[in-house]
């Protein structure tokens, strides 16, 4: 099934409670790990029919925090708002040169990107990384050069595994006006990363209108582009490159209303006269973690049922 769920999936109420109890020293690490495993197991079950699976990143505090372990002299410090949400991530500060601890890369990837509950290293998994502008925003006093150096090193390692999608999250495009130099950095980095392997590289640009930056985004050397269709109308796709995969953010992370087949049909109808060389992937409009787990699960089920029913209709 062509649904992907990159990034952090919401923790269950049981895990939310367990982390709270753990922080208050009322739960042991072993007990907490057992609850994390249960979340991973149920998330794995929910993704059973999907072509690519995510681990849910249930042990991540935010998309930046794990970098604390792999960059020399890095520390997570003050809280910074995650764009225009009520979610806060910790800023990373570094008393060195933003250099990767290369010798620790294998165990670091093992710890943060794989889960025994989800799949083996050969299975089809989506890895999520912040893209350079997002990384720079949460890495104090870092330059694009620093961000590029760090992300390139990690991407190379992640892409050495077969059957993977590397999904870069980047809300900054559409939020901040980028300079030509910044755009150049982005293009060059992606061009180089594309040479690392035949794995797919996707770029998700949620939350904001892409109208002003669509030419830039559409020409980036990636295999797929994720678009938030609660921030963008379908008319944005007029110049969408036919050879790229459209990752349609149609599960709203602004609302707990469970999208119905009528709404999904409505979206499909809007695409009626458009041609895509690849099948469309569906996903959340923003980041799934903005919703409670039970709601995100229901939205996912509704989407799966619609895709299943649509495929039944088209085959009969």
């Amino acid at each position, binding site marked *: 099934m062509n649904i992907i769920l990159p990034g952090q999936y919401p923790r269950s109420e049981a895990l939310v409670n367990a982390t709270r109890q753990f922080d208050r020293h009322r739960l042991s690490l072993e007990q907490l790990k057992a609850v994390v495993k249960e979340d991973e197991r149920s998330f794995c079950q929910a993704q059973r029919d999907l072509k690519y699976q995510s681990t849910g990143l249930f042990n991540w505090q935010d998309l930046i925090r794990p970098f604390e372990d792999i960059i020399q002299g890095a520390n997570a410090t003050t809280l910074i708002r995650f764009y225009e949400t009520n979610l806060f991530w910790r800023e990373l500060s570094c008393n060195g040169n933003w250099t990767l601890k290369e010798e620790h890369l294998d165990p670091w990837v093992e710890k943060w990107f794989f889960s025994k509950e989800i799949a083996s290293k050969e299975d089809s998994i989506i890895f999520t990384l912040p893209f350079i502008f997002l990384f720079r925003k949460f890495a104090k006093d870092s330059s694009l050069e620093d961000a590029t150096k760090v992300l390139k090193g990690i991407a190379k390692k992640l892409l050495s595994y077969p059957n993977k999608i590397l999904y870069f999250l980047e809300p900054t495009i559409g939020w901040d006006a980028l300079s030509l130099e910044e755009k150049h950095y982005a293009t060059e980095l992606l061009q180089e990363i594309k040479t690392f392997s035949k794995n797919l590289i996707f770029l998700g640009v949620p939350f904001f209108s892409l109208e002003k930056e669509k030419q830039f985004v559409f020409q980036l050397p990636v295999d797929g582009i994720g678009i938030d269709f609660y921030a*963008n109308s*379908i008319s944005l796709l007029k110049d969408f490159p036919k050879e790229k995969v459209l990752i349609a953010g*149609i599960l709203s992370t602004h609302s707990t209303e469970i999208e119905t087949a009528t*709404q999904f049909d409505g979206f499909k109808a809007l695409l009626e006269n458009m041609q895509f060389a690849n099948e469309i992937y569906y996903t959340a409009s923003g980041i799934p973690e903005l919703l409670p787990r039970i709601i995100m699960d229901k939205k996912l089920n509704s989407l799966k049922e619609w895709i299943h029913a649509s495929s039944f209709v088209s085959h009969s």
Partner: protein
Amino acid sequence: MHLHSLVTHEIGSLAKPSWRVKAFLNSPLNEHDIEGAKYWGEFLGIESTEHLLKVLSKKEHFTQQEKAEILSFSSLYATRFLEKSGLDLIWDGEQHRVEMYEHVIKHAKGFVCRGHVRSFDNKYYEKASCIDLPSCKPLHLDELETIKNFTSHPIKIPITGAYTLVDWSFDEFYSKHTVPGMNNVAIERKKSRKQFLKDVAVQIVHPTLEALYQKGAHFLQIDEPAAATKREEIADFVEATKLSVGNLAGKLFFSMHLCFSDYPRLMPPIKELEQIIDAIHLECANRDTLELGVHKDKRKGYDILHSFKDTAFKIGIGVCDVHTDYIESPELIRDRILFACDILGDPHRVMVAPDCGLRTRTWEVAFKKLQNLVFGRNLAAIALGINANNLARQNLENTQFLQ
């Protein structure tokens, strides 16, 4: 409304005593909880501590009536706590409420709690959806009446603002059945949100402000930590504040608390609130250095005050960081106040408080921070040559607080 110079207050919440929390969670109390009640009762000079201890000695299975008594004692303890620390404006540190968002949502119509979402780290909050037209009976009236019985000092009641209530909620009423990708989808969502905001301001926040005014409240604080979250909605936040205050502008003292926000985003639209809101309270200590001095290099957290210099607002400055146990010295607090007075040009324009509510600190730490806040204010007053009679607390005993 005019206040005396350098008025001090606590912004919002204080931690709830363990005996209050456990009693309401139906969790058994232990000796440590009861010793805490005894210690603070004696320290704060609570006359009826023995009665509380008798109620708590049951340790579990409290009746509704006993829980009501425990709640009342919790309010009394917190009120006396703030009084004893020497603050000018007093309340009970949110003892009657679960939390600033959840309390309102659970009393309002049109909302339903959907589950927990992350705020940061492992900290989550229960987020609700608006599923119908929002409305609410006036809130916090019992709270005001209870606190009036506990103190003769001026009372401040904080109220969660409309923009924050909307921004922290999901909407599945106003934007119901939106088709992703439809024409003008972002514009339609914006329209829905404006209506949501307007309804919350008019149907939830204003009735509470009006009722509190009718009950004799003189100081109301509108809490809007979310105000600067979305840069394209600053004008909507301003409009919602106007609707919330409505015809009450000028009738009582309104302050607005804005914390952990991107303050420059609020300028200049927030100036439209000059005749509506009397004071704007900012979180500054969190952004400041711990070094003494009144040079701008030492007082980085207060640089934002330049943006507010040419407004008509009084400015509340946060002088204590609420996220650390570090106890700011009176001298550090003095220097922060002096720096602010220098920028704003008039100590009458400066109010003094912690950055935010102290609920994450123990009472021991919170008390030391607040006591030093008052000591620091007094040192600043001496440095500024302000007569003690012009400081709020000294003036309270003899004359009216409001001029």
